[in-house]
């Protein structure tokens, strides 16, 4: 589903965020990326849907190469949904409009068709009664659930989550993790950056530990936690758990 | 008695003598007053003001002022007298006092050859669709309005802008005090011409000073009288208005 090969990414200020990073994600797999701050996790996710240009290497998503062709890039943006740490809902629109917008403008659905999907998804994340609310009137956890619904409305094949819960209050993290788990169970392909080891253990199929723009260790979820091979991984796990 | 003494002491004349400096307000008007190449003021009015100061035994200080602000500046005491080719008009006289005239000037008109082809009388310009340019707040502006009520009169802060309007052909004619129109017609013979010879108005020119100051007015009046009789004024007028010797001083 995702083939990322030997990716290098250097920011204009000279920071080498990715230094030859490769990753394979199979369909319906849930890959969790962990690692210390600044290790390049966000950068990798951002490269996957074209928010950042890569300097070297190749990315192929669902057999479409992410190159300079405008069609390909557009196609990939439609296949890939992204949920940000800071929600990024459109504050001047209601929940309904937030979710309708891209469906109507990008998928060219009419209002009725869009509305149907919107209600369906809001039901799924448990937010149907807030359909007329503005983002400012919602708690963080509620906003994040709407953001997930908004990304899902584009019917993406892959969902990327960048620390989707770390801006939330402890009590609200649970709500969002629930929605993510449900998605994983339904067979959505997901790449998740998180500090929530509980989630990684429960829902992750494959765990990737990265540092300084490179993979230190990757393994299936069970092996990773019970039996880390590298000293660095063990140190990290001891500090974070 | 006391009142009279007080008035005398407060008169501009006394102030000037005490200060030792006569401050003269004027605005650039060729060839009444202008700056030469070195930044010094020259012109007919400048000569008059210098002579006046010399006779009073004081120094002279020139205060160049925008024409549109010249009367308020006089009224608020920014200078003592306007010697600036100011025509004596009733509405002006309501605000300031004028001396007896030391000079006369008249309006004349210069027109654009292309635009005003065949216009050979004043009446030819008094038509709808004709544009006349003049300097804001001058007797020329009033004359333009009076003689060409049907034409559109466009007013500018400066003579040179009015003339520019004429040169680009957006105005049919410019009204201004003689001899300026004649000078320009001479300078740009291909583009400008004089539709009528000479002037079509005659206006007395006087010094302007603040109201309620008999002493100073009387002094100035008599000074003018004396200079007129000696022929001094005519002599200088001939130089500035009759010859173009001074042109090399400004270019």
């Amino acid at each position, binding site marked *: 589903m995702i083939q990322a090969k030997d990716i290098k990414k250097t920011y204009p200020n000279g920071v080498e965020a990715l230094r030859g990073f490769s990753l394979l994600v199979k369909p319906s797999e849930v890959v969790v990326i962990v690692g210390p701050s600044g290790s390049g996790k966000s950068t990798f996710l951002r490269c996957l849907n074209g928010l950042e*240009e*890569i*300097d*070297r*290497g*190749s990315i192929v998503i669902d057999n479409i190469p992410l*190159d*300079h062709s405008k069609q390909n890039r557009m196609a990939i943006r439609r296949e890939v949904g992204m949920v940000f740490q800071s929600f990024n809902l459109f504050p001047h629109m209601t929940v309904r409009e937030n979710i309708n917008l891209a469906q109507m403008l990008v998928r060219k659905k009419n209002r009725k068709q869009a509305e149907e999907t919107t209600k369906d998804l809001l039901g799924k994340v448990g937010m149907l009664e807030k359909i007329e609310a503005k983002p400012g009137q919602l708690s963080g956890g509620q906003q994040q659930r709407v953001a997930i619904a908004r990304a899902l409305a584009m019917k993406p094949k892959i969902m990327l989550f960048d620390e989707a819960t770390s801006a939330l209050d402890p009590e609200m993290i649970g709500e969002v993790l629930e929605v993510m788990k449900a998605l994983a169970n339904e067979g959505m392909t997901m790449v998740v950056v998180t500090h929530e080891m509980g989630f990684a253990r429960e829902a992750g199929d494959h765990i990737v530990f990265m540092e300084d723009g490179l993979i230190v260790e990757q393994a299936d979820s069970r092996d990773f936690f019970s039996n880390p091979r590298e000293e660095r991984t063990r140190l990290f796990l001891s500090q974070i758990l | 008695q006391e009142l009279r003494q007080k008035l005398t002491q407060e008169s501009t004349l006394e102030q000037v003598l005490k200060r030792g*400096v006569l401050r003269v307000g004027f605005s*650039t*008007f*060729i060839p009444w007053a*202008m*700056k030469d*190449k*070195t*930044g010094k003021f020259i012109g007919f009015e400048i000569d008059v003001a210098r002579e006046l100061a010399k006779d009073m035994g004081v120094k002279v*200080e020139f*205060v*160049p*002022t*925008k024409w*549109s*602000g010249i009367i*308020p*500046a006089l009224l*608020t*005491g*920014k200078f003592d007298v306007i010697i600036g080719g100011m025509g004596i008009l009733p509405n002006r006289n309501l605000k300031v006092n004028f001396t007896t005239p030391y000079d006369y000037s008249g309006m004349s008109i210069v027109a654009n050859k292309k635009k005003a082809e065949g216009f050979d009388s004043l009446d030819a310009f008094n038509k709808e669709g004709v544009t006349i340019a003049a300097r804001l707040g001058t007797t020329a502006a009033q004359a333009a309005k009076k003689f060409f009520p049907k034409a559109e009169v466009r007013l500018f*802060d*400066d*003579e*040179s*802008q009015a*003339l*520019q309007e004429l*040169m*680009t052909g957006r105005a049919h004619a410019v009204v201004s005090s003689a001899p300026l129109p004649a000078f*320009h017609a001479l300078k740009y013979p291909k*583009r400008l011409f004089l539709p009528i010879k000479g002037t079509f108005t005659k206006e007395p020119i006087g010094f302007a000073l603040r109201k309620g100051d008999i002493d100073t007015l009387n002094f100035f009046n008599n000074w003018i009288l004396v200079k007129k009789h000696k022929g001094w004024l005519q002599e200088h007028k001939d130089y500035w208005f009759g010859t173009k010797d001074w042109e090399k001083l*400004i*270019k």
Partner: protein
Amino acid sequence: MRITLLKLPKTSFLDLAILASVATGLAYLAHRVAVGMGYDWDWAIIPQYFIRFDDETQSYVPNLLLNGLLTTIRLSVWSTLLATILGLVMGLSRLSRGLFHRLMGWSYVESVRNLPPLVLVFIIYYFLSEQLLPTLHISNAMDAAPGWVREMVTILFAKPQALPAFLSAVFTLALYEGAYITEIIRAGIQSVEKGQWEAAYALGLSSRQRMQHVILPQAMRRILPPLGGQFISTIKDSAIVSIISIQELTFQGMELMSATYLTFEVWITVFLLYLSLTLTCSLAVNRLEKRMAGPDH
């Protein structure tokens, strides 16, 4: 994939379209000039109005335009200085707890910003300066002053006899620009995070110490660049005092034009003079902005 060796600017369709339309526009203008205007250009006489040879002293001395330019610079510098002081006082007033101070600051800013500058110039020149300047006894002081003082004053401000007018022009401009500087300073102070106020408070600093040691030094980096920008505005706005016959650049330009009738040459020269003056400052301000935007000092 893409290996970038040399970053050449990518040229897009938009680039080409813009270049094409600019070129067409210029060509059309050139065509119209060639066909239409028929103006006799006479640039040769402009230079002598910058600098001329003085026969009396046998040396080169600045002439009209250069003098005007210098006056413009003097006006701008002094009025910006004065305006900054005024702006600081008023800016702090606007943030003050006292209603009186806030009202004063507010009414100052609003009245200045809503009145046409022309009217402000009149009010100050004809009414207020009449009241204030005589009490300073400037004319008398100048007459009594020794020669070197008079020379200093001439270099720094204006000729002694023109001093009162110059000062009232400086007051006027300072009052006008001060309103904008007030807002710059207020915004700068408000841009300092709330946390900084609170930390200083929690450490027990008095409100004066807090302002002086914590808030103002940090606000400075937000204040200096727009303050530089305001200086540029002052240079431009100083043209308005030409209506009270201060002999700055615009006034001298107008005088020159009425004497020579070289409308285009004079306007273009004056335009370029302003442009070179303000562009220099603008470059300096950009530098400053870059420095200020960098990591903390």
